[in-house]
């Protein structure tokens, strides 16, 4: 971890209009939860739907994509990363710092909103709120690592990330059950499922598969990002 890199990254992420962009979805989730609660549509099934489909399946991947690619992608594209790379700082320190910043952003803009939304909707009934909070957190760690690695490896990280989150996880998952088992979303849901007795939460992947895969993907993505950053070719040189 390097506090100087973290400071610059936080300022780049939160300084401009991007902060508003980051806030839009969580605010929408909270507003929806408040409306559902106040109109009485807050039974366990509806709440589970909101937390899973909105919180875990939409808010989390999008926020992780914005945060994960945003902490490093623009700096690579605009060439500012040169100023960090021309320093005697080990590359894994740069990657781990960027990851840490992205994770903090995901916690603030996805994990905390899901927690608040769950509290508004169901309180702590059937431990569903804490279960989703933990599920979103572990899913967030994996998503963020994947999207940071993607941003280092490809100029089209945002597009690829969107295709993965929207097409692969959400769309294909509905048609092809196989695609579901290769999905961070489902692994995270599996963790949630294990933590709550609430019947509406049903994961398609067992915990014994999900947890090792989450750990493996997070570690592999971090290693890939470090490896690619060591041999990053600057844009203007191509």
């Amino acid at each position, binding site marked *: 971890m*390097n*506090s*100087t*890199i973290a*400071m*610059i990254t936080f*300022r*780049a992420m939160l*300084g*401009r209009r991007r902060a508003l962009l980051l806030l839009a979805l969580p605010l929408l989730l909270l507003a929806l939860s408040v409306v559902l609660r106040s109109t009485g549509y807050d039974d366990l099934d509806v709440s589970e739907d909101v937390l899973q489909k909105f919180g875990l399946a939409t808010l989390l991947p999008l926020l992780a994509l914005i945060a994960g690619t945003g902490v490093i992608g623009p700096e690579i594209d*605009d*060439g*500012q990363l*040169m*100023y*960090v*790379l*021309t*320093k*005697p*700082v*080990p*590359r894994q320190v740069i990657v781990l710092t960027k990851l840490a910043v992205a994770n903090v952003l995901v916690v603030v803009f996805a994990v905390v909103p899901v927690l608040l939304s769950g509290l508004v909707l169901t309180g702590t009934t059937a431990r569903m709120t804490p279960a989703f909070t933990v599920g979103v957190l572990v899913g967030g760690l994996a998503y963020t690592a994947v999207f940071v690695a993607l941003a280092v490896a490809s100029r089209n990280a945002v597009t690829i990330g969107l295709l993965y989150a929207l097409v692969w996880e959400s769309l294909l998952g509905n048609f092809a059950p196989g695609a579901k088992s290769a999905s961070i979303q489902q692994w995270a849901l599996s963790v949630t499922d294990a933590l709550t007795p609430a019947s509406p939460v049903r994961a398609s992947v067992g915990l014994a598969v999900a947890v090792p895969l989450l750990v493996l993907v997070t570690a592999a993505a971090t290693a890939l990002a470090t490896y690619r950053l*060591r*041999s*990053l*070719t*600057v*844009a*203007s*040189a*191509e």
Partner: protein
Amino acid sequence: MSELRLEGVSRWYGNVVAVNGVSMTVGPGVTGLLGPNGAGKSTLIHMMGGFLAPSSGTVTLDGTTIWRNPGIYRHLGLVPERESAYDFLTGEQFIVAMAKLHGLDDPGVAARRAIARVEMEPAAGRTIGTYSKGMKQRIKMASALVHDPPVLLLDEPFNGMDPRQRLQLMDLIRQMAAEGRTILFSSHILEEVERLASHIEVIVAGRHAASGDFRKIRRLMTDRPHIFLVRSSDDRRLAAAVIADGSARSVQLTDKGLQVEAVDFQRFTWLLPRVSRDTGVRLWEVSPADESLESVFSYLVDR
């Protein structure tokens, strides 16, 4: 005293060769890397700065490999060509951050020294986004200087600068060279290189075309055959007189005027007005037909 050494360095992208078998040694003082746009100067500088792996050959600083060796940046400062710095930071915050990333003992002091060096104190409190092009160039320079490196690489440092900023930067580079630093800068403008560099490396189409003292290279450049286009009141008579003298190898009557290939540049420029006066031919226009830098370079390459 540090020395950058390139040995048999090539770099290709797919099947496009950007740099082709370049060997050179860059020692203390100012070295100019001269070449037309797209010649491979940036590719070379990026390999010297550790941002690009040579496809073959080695790039070393005092015997240490530069590629994949972040520790090298303790001894190396790099000013990239691209303008963008962290626009949301003030000049001072930026330089202090760079000093911290270098792990310097007192980042504040080092930053103030580097900012003073490039004479940016008055604007240090403003965000970089509000800076002019020349100011950005200077703050980038301060970022490369903050750890007082013995080697400095500058990629097209004068691009987009006005004449006054250009002079200031030239002064600064000269001062730093006088302190014994090894400085290499790239440019596609002969005059810039000539005014600043005692030693020149010429790169054309990825190949190392010439190397040495700027006077020697300047002579190579002026000694080559020059082609002039002359328009006059009587091209035919002028052609006869020019060819009779011997300073021109060939003359050609074209519909645009008289095309003269002069072998002796100095003698020809001295002769032409005399010949026209003696023969009573009025000169309308004399223009060099191949003065572009590219033609000078291609001549050097062909030799």
